[in-house]
């Protein structure tokens, strides 16, 4: 059953189309990552879903309620943390949570909620004196009031320190286990990758791809094969570059790194290295990260490759074919070079990496 159902949604600001015929759905209980570079239309979509902005065309339902005519019913069941919110500087954190509970008509324990989001000692302090991170934690607490059936989070990690980001992930996982649907909008791919079941990537107001992260990896079908060897002769590197599907080959003294698209290409590369008799001792394959999928989707490489397959159903890769670059901050491939951040991410996504002995 779909909690969010968006059909042919279009929003124009003057002559600029912020959303262009957008269609997708989010199922009950799933954690849906809504990705896109800055200006892609993520916040506009959320603003329409919550009734802040009117659509120019198309329709959207949440819990089966129309977002324009039944917005209040939607928000009774929704907890939202929206980018760019401002706190009531003269109200305390406790009063903020109490206001959320009053508006929803539920009984809530402000102390328990503020404890859960990590600011129990700030309950009776006015929010005007809070740091950005404290405000963000308080806002997360307000979103959790009343155990909402849907959590809409727009850039929720903004202002949070690493501990706060980790706490946020844990809260999202707990809410998901409770049965809540989570709509997680961000341009920070690692945040989305860490918690989401399914992602949709928005660019220029259009959904360029969506599906399970694993499905998207499979569709990207590119991975890195790192092979430990005793030597790396130029003849080997040349033969690897000649294999159909191999996109890039590099080498150090004792390692060959091959970027290949498709299982056959990877197998042929491994066979070629074994045949070269260079002391093949071990190999590792690394599947593409969500960041690489995002880069492919927003830079239009995959979209161009899949042009014509513009079905917005699950797992499809949309074909805008525009090829326009995303913001530099928002894209960029994960080189998995072994620094701490990457190791942490690899730990979160261990299933993305397969290892084998030769």
């Amino acid at each position: 059953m779909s909690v969010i159902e968006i059909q042919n949604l279009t929003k124009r600001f003057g002559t600029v189309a912020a959303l262009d015929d957008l269609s997708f759905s989010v199922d009950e209980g799933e954690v849906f990552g809504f990705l896109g570079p800055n200006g892609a239309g993520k916040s506009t979509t959320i603003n329409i879903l919550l009734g802040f902005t009117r659509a120019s065309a198309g329709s959207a339902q949440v819990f089966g309620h129309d977002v324009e005519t039944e917005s209040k019913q939607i928000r009774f069941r929704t907890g939202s943390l929206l980018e760019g919110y401002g706190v009531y500087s003269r109200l305390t954190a406790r009063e903020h949570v109490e206001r959320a509970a009053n508006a929803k008509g539920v009984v809530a324990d402000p102390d328990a909620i503020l404890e859960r989001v990590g600011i129990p000692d700030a309950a009776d302090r006015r929010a005007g004196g809070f740091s950005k991170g404290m405000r963000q934690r308080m806002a997360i607490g307000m979103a959790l009031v009343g155990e909402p059936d849907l959590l809409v989070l727009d850039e929720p990690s903004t202002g949070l320190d690493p501990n706060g980001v980790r706490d946020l992930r844990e809260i999202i996982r707990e809410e998901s286990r409770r049965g809540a649907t989570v709509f997680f909008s961000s341009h920070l791919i690692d945040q989305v990758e860490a918690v989401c079941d399914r992602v949709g990537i928005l660019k220029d107001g259009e959904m360029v791809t969506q599906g399970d992260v694993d499905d998207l990896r499979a569709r990207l079908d590119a991975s890195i094969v790192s092979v430990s060897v005793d030597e790396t002769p130029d003849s080997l590197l040349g033969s690897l570059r000649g294999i159909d599907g191999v996109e890039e080959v590099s080498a150090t003294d004792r390692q060959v790194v091959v970027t290949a698209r498709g299982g056959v290409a990877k197998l042929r590369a491994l066979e070629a290295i074994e045949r070269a008799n260079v002391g093949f001792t071990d190999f590792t394959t690394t599947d593409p990260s969500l960041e690489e999928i995002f880069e492919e989707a927003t830079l239009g490489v995959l979209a161009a490759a899949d042009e014509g397959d513009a079905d917005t159903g699950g797992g499809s890769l949309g074909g805008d074919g525009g090829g326009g670059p995303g913001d530099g901050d928002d894209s960029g491939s994960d080189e998995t070079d072994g620094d701490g951040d990457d190791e942490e991410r690899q730990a979160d996504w261990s299933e993305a990496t397969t290892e084998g002995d030769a």
Partner: protein
Amino acid sequence: MSLRTVVEDDLLRLRRSPLGWGVALSVLAPTAGIAAIMVLLELVDVTGGPAAPFDNIMMTVAVLLSFLLPFVAMLGSYSAIVYERESGSVRFLLGLPNSRWDAYAGKYVSRTVLLVVSILAGFLTLALVGFGILTDPSASGLLLFVLATVAFALVFVGFGIAISGVANSLIGATAGIIATYVVFRGGWMIAQFAGLYVTPPQGEVARPYPDWFFFLGRVNPLNAYLKVVVEVFDRGPNTLVRQVLLTNPAPEVNTVATGTPYAVLALTGWLVVVPVVGYLLFRRKDLL
């Protein structure tokens, strides 16, 4: 439930903000302030004569309020919604299950409470002094004065909230209330006389003025308010208020527009139409 929540939240914030106290003190100044001055004059009593007539003091208060109250009422309400949009707290206000009606009506009610409580406090003080010191006090007159003043204040609370709901920025809303005040305070009369100048006989502004002049003039809520108060504390045809502020009609002019019911109707019209139109515009507006 949500409407009540919005009202309570807004009142709590007003109680803790300089704006709320500033508005209250600005209303108390020409009411309780005048009462305090009367007490001081009575205490020093340099002339030794009788105390001032009640009606004269009430008219003085009314004239002061006709200048001050429109701006203070709009000042107390113009930021109610647009500030929430600028600061981002509208994402809490309307991200929670509050409808736009809850937000708009809730803000209107809370700002009304602020103004009405301030007016009542001021008039209570005025009543104590009036009945204790002044000559010929009138309970019914004071009651009608209070009712007219509350209605007059709410007209401009309505303007403030409507402007706040429609404006896209605090600067825009500030410009809106200043423009509204200027139009009613001076622009309206300029329009009346400009109308006289361009209508036959062209180039002349001669009495008796035509009926339309008064129909237009008495629609102005400032004029309507003073007309009502003058009727309550009638001091004859040659008072300053009648001569200057009300563009006093010559004796031969006798239209519906110069009557008190027209003034009451004009105040009631503004009281209802402005907030309703403001809400209808706010209801469909993109807020983010």
